């Protein structure tokens, strides 16, 4: 599934993620698809690590799905990894999107889980809508995509 996000989508997502951060007191959060591509992030992430984080979030979620299948479950809708200083919580939004929350030991894990669930439910509709759109116009409808350079890497 490939999402195409326009400016209005990004504003809605940003609003929902900020609300989630405020309520849960998590430090940072991001959305990626199950293929491992980033959709949106809020809060502090190291710029050069964020793509790798998404690839690993999608990878660990998929690995956990295999574990669920082996145990007779369809999948685990959320997974939690506890660290010494920071912990993470990954929850599914529908079939295609994952929400990652990062929070410190000063934050209550139960609150994060609860508000993450609410946020996921809220954003599920939005992503269903975005996914159903057959065609997203670039902001400037006359814009076309022009290839700039062919040999990109030297």
């Amino acid at each position: 599934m490939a999402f195409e996000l326009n400016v209005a989508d990004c504003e809605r997502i940003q609003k929902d993620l900020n609300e989630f951060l405020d309520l849960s007191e998590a430090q940072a959060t991001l959305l990626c698809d199950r293929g491992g591509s980033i959709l949106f992030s809020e809060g502090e992430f190291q710029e050069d690590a964020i793509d790798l984080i998404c690839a690993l979030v999608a990878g660990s979620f998929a690995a956990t799905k295999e574990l669920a299948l082996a145990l007779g479950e369809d999948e685990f809708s959320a997974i939690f990894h506890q660290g010494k200083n920071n912990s993470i919580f990954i929850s599914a939004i529908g079939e295609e999107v994952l929400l990652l929350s990062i929070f410190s030991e000063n934050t209550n894990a139960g609150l994060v889980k609860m508000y993450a669930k609410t946020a996921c439910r809220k954003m599920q509709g939005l992503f269903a809508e975005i996914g159903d759109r057959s065609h997203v116009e670039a902001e400037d409808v006359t814009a076309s995509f022009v290839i700039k350079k062919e040999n990109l890497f030297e």
Partner: protein
Amino acid sequence: MPQVNYAKKEIQFKIVYYGPGMCGKTTNLQVIHEKVPAKAKGKMASLATSQDRTLFFDFLPLKAEAIEGYVCKFQMYTVPGQVKYNSTRKLVLRSCDGVVFVADSQLSKMQENKESLLNLEENLQAQGDTLAKMPLVFQYNKKDLPQIAPNQYMDFLLNNGSVKVPIIEASAIKGDGVLDTLNAIAKLVIQDFVAKKNQGN
């Protein structure tokens, strides 16, 4: 189709290096990581066992200005080649926009190459894609070794569809052909995207 963000002016392509175990997929990403300047790449990771064989995947994010007004990101992955890791290969193939099939040119590896290509085709079909429509290049690797098959023979075995797939000869371990392969697949995924968008899909 790649992810597009019109607010950030960013397009993300996912490219997967596929092929039998030990054909040189991980080596390709390592060479790319060495050669590409720092501003064009992010953190690389190899999820490997202690014996250096890829258990999960290798990952390398790249960035380039390929389309006017947009930053293009290329999320590069390898799959584990060993037959038993098929569920990992399926996961890595999810939402992929282009494939580099790395074939081992040693004569003794032709059967493994064929099986891996067949496995790629099956896994693409299972996710609703087809090999024929997927941007694809073949890298005939390990050309530095003795007892290798001529390209013509490899084409006869592997590249025998109605449309010929572009091939690149390589010796990944020496760095030869690695960036040519990367440029070839990047060009194909971009052309595929631009053609679809400009037709209004």
